Structures are given as structure tokens and as C-alpha cells.
């Protein structure tokens, strides 16, 4: 098969010799039946007999313009469903040291806990055998059946048995705020296993994208993505998840970060007067967030004046929070160098490109 490299999609020359870790690379299932080798016969027949074609996602229209990199769609299946293309279009031309995979297959839309758990396990076994074990540069994120936190915790324990998994993921649009105590078995298992909990943009819980209900247009959905992340970070802090699990790290994936400094200002200010509600939050919320939250950078909010973004990054007051990501096969930049903020220091750039990912995911 001919090499199918993408135009203007490769490591920029000026990054020569620097380690690069991509912390958000998406893989997709080409067909639900691809899971059958990893799924118990009971569920294979359940799918076949019911005529289930696949789990539908309404997160974005499949043909929305500019969403996926042109040329990233394999002959069969959606973008992100071919390891060969991933190698030729991302791993090789970007000279990635590691790529952290994410699979957002719509397991969270299933209402049957047992079926969701079986699908999550099958997806994770599929990821392990067909991706992680096929290329040593790949590291995995296990999908969790969030419907049932006890089952989800079991899935964390399963993932922990395979060193290729460095993360477990839950959707940002969960059925209720992720800090609530019902979800804690997941965090307990993740802390014990040393796995990062990734909060991935999206989710099919049925909750609308915005707190004021469903928006009319896709552009509103897409721009509103940070709203769910803000709610989740507030919940993690206020509920005391990081007090209970002091070793836990949460990574926000595709959630942006330019909104974080003003949210922290507001959170700290109001905590001073309202902290008696949440007495376990004994430090300013911004400190808790800075110690426990890491963020993938794509898609980058890119103001016309690049210095503005540098100022926002300065206002994070920490250089260890941001992690490079392409969000392949989604298209977020016309020129590869635009995948990083313009005008940051060399030291910070090195940390964003690889150092922060190494520290967060204990790569090595």
C-alpha cells in the first residue's frame, strides 16, 4: 500500500531533535462486528439478533466540513480506524515518541449496565490487541462503563493489568457531575492503579450541551464544549475528590484551557465566603486544580493577537499543566507549527511537547 502521508501535516522543522508526545489521538471502530472476537457469544448474538448496526453518536455530523483531516478516512470505516494510516499520517511524520490513544465509542449511550460493561471490555481488548500491542509508540486509554461505577472500577482494575494503558476515560457530558461520591469507586481504583482519569469531550448521557438547553446549530455545540469541563472541574474540587484521592490526576481532553484562569479567580474568590459548605477544601481551589489537573491543548483557542494566548498561559501560573496534542484525525490547524501556542518560552515549549506528558502518564 502506498504511503498516504498528509500534506502540511508533519513535525515542523524547527522542532528537530525534541521529544514529542501526542496526548490525544483518536481511534475508531470500523464496525461493531470488529468487536466480536473480543465479546462474549451472548452479546455477539444479542447484537446480531436485534439487528443493532452500531452505537450511534450525535456528537457531530459525520460529514461536517473541516472536522476531519482530509485524507484521514480509510477505504473502509471512519477516520481513525486504520492503524496503518495512523502510522503513516501521524506517528511517522511527526516522529512521535508516544501517542496516547482515545476511543470515544458511544458506550455511555447504552442503558443496560451489563451490556455496557461487556462493550467497554471488548473495546479495551480490541484497543490492546489491535493497536497497543502492534506499535510500541502507542499508549492506551481504557473506556469505562460509567453507567455503573462498580463495573467501571472493575474495568480500571482490568486496564491496570496491562502496562500499555496509562489512562481511563469518562465523558465530559456525564449524567451528573463527575465529582459526586457515587463515582468514587472509579477514582479509588484509578489511584491504586496509578492511572490518570481522562475527561474526554463529548458524552451521550442525554444532558444537553449547554446549561440552558439544546442549542440550534452545530457551531454552538462545538464552541460550548468547555462548559461541561468547567462544571466537572468545579465538581471534582468541591466534592473533595482530590482530598480523598490525593494521588489522583485528572486530564481534560479536548476541553481547551483558556477559560481556566478566570474560572479559578472566581472559584477562589467565592470559596473564601462559601467554604464552610465544603470544609474539606482547605486550600484555594486554584491550588487544587493546579496540582491535580492536566490539559491537552488541541483544539487551541487562537486569538488574532498571539500574545493574548501567551498571557493566558502565564495566568495559569504553572508550566506543568499543558500537554501537546493533535487530536488526530480531527483537523485543528492548517500549519503544523500552529499546533503549539506562538511565542512561548523554549523551556515551556519543551514541557508542553513531552515533559508534562511524561510526568503525567509516567511514560518511559
Amino acid at each position: 500500500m502506498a504511503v498516504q502521508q498528509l500534506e502540511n501535516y508533519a513535525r515542523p522543522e524547527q522542532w528537530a531533535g525534541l521529544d514529542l508526545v501526542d496526548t490525544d489521538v483518536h481511534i475508531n471502530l470500523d464496525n461493531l462486528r470488529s468487536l466480536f472476537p473480543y465479546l462474549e457469544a451472548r452479546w455477539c448474538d444479542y447484537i446480531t439478533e436485534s439487528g443493532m448496526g452500531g452505537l450511534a453518536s450525535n456528537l457531530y455530523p459525520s460529514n461536517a466540513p473541516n472536522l476531519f483531516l482530509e485524507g484521514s478516512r480509510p477505504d473502509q470505516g471512519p477516520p481513525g480506524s486504520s492503524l496503518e494510516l495512523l502510522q503513516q499520517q501521524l506517528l511517522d511524520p511527526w516522529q512521535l515518541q508516544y501517542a496516547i490513544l482515545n476511543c470515544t465509542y458511544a458506550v455511555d449511550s447504552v442503558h443496560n449496565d451489563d451490556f455496557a460493561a461487556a462493550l467497554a471490555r471488548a473495546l479495551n481488548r480490541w484497543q490492546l490487541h489491535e493497536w497497543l500491542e502492534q506499535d510500541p509508540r502507542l499508549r492506551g486509554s481504557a473506556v469505562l462503563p460509567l453507567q455503573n461505577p462498580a463495573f467501571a472500577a472493575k474495568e480500571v482494575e482490568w486496564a491496570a493489568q496491562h502496562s500499555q494503558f496509562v489512562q481511563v476515560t469518562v465523558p465530559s457530558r456525564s449524567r451528573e457531575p463527575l465529582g459526586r461520591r457515587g463515582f468514587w469507586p472509579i477514582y479509588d481504583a484509578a489511584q491504586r492503579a496509578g492511572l490518570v482519569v481522562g475527561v474526554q469531550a463529548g458524552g451521550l448521557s442525554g444532558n444537553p450541551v449547554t446549561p440552558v438547553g439544546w442549542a440550534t446549530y452545530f457551531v454552538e455545540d462545538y464552541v460550548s464544549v468547555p462548559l461541561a469541563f468547567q462544571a466537572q472541574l468545579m465538581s471534582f474540587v468541591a466534592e473533595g475528590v482530590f482530598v480523598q484521592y490525593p494521588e489522583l490526576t485528572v486530564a481534560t481532553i479536548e476541553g481547551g484551557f483558556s477559560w481556566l484562569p478566570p474560572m479559578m479567580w472566581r472559584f477562589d474568590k467565592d470559596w473564601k465566603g462559601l467554604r464552610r459548605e465544603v470544609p474539606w477544601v482547605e486550600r484555594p481551589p486554584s491550588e487544587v486544580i493546579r496540582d491535580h489537573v492536566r490539559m491537552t491543548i488541541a483544539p487551541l483557542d487562537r486569538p488574532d493577537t498571539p500574545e493574548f494566548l501567551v498571557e493566558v498561559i502565564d495566568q495559569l501560573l504553572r508550566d506543568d499543566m499543558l500537554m501537546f496534542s493533535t487530536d488526530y484525525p480531527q483537523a485543528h490547524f492548517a500549519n503544523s507549527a500552529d499546533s503549539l501556542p506562538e511565542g512561548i518560552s523554549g523551556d515551556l515549549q519543551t514541557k508542553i511537547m513531552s515533559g508534562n506528558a511524561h510526568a503525567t502518564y509516567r511514560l518511559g
Partner: protein
Amino acid sequence: MTKYVVATVDEIPPGRRKVVEIAKRSIGVFNVKGNFYAIRNQCPHGGGPMCEGVTSGLVRSDKPGNYDYIMRGEIIRCPWHGWEFEIATGQSWFDPAKTKVKAYATDVESGEALARNPELSAAGFQPGPYSGETYEVEVDRDYVIVNI
């Protein structure tokens, strides 16, 4: 330091307060479990009338869901934004080193002792609680003194 007679002891029973105007300042005088404390009626945060806030306790926690409710009645919360201060010291809960409200020393003097010094000014006393008014000392009562 000037001493101001601000109230009779029985005017401010335990758990109550009296806000007085002395030395051109608004000051809250509190009876916390039989001890008298005085703090400035101005929150160091936004300048709110702090001494009009709720007196309460302090909630601490060693883990989520555990509530350790201590110092009941010893904490004042500013009515504007809820910042919490210890009435006895004026220190804030979340930033005791930097954020505090001015606290003044208090004494309780018997009326008999005050009566032996009818010239209060000469003895270092200023009449209170209102500037220009004379506080009538009765020998069989005790008085709360604020030192400024």
C-alpha cells in the same frame, strides 16, 4: 490607650452583641460564653458591616463528608460575602496571617470601681458609647470597657 465604657454587662448577654460608635469607629462588642470581645465593624475584604453578620461555629473536615463543628458561637460571618473571622482575635479562617479585622482589648469594671473615679476622663476613661454623652455609672452594676 483610651478606655471607653460601652455597656453594662447585662446589656450583652452570652451570644449577643452591641455595636457602638466610639473614637469615630463602629465597633462590635460581643459576649462569647461570658467573655467580652470587641472588633471593628468593618470587613477587611469589602468593608461590609461585619458585626451585623451571623455568629456561628467553624466547620472543619479531615475528609469529604466528615464535619467537625467547633468553636460554636465564636465565629462571625460578614453579611456581605460570608468571610469568617474569629471574634476573639479578628483572624480570618482562610488567611489568618494576612487577613484580619482589628480586635480591641476589653475589660469588665465594677460600677463601684468606676464610681470611685467620678472624673472618668482624668482616670483614663472616656464616656461612651456615644461621643459627647455621659455614661451614667451605677455602683451596683458591672460595665464593659473597650480599650482603643
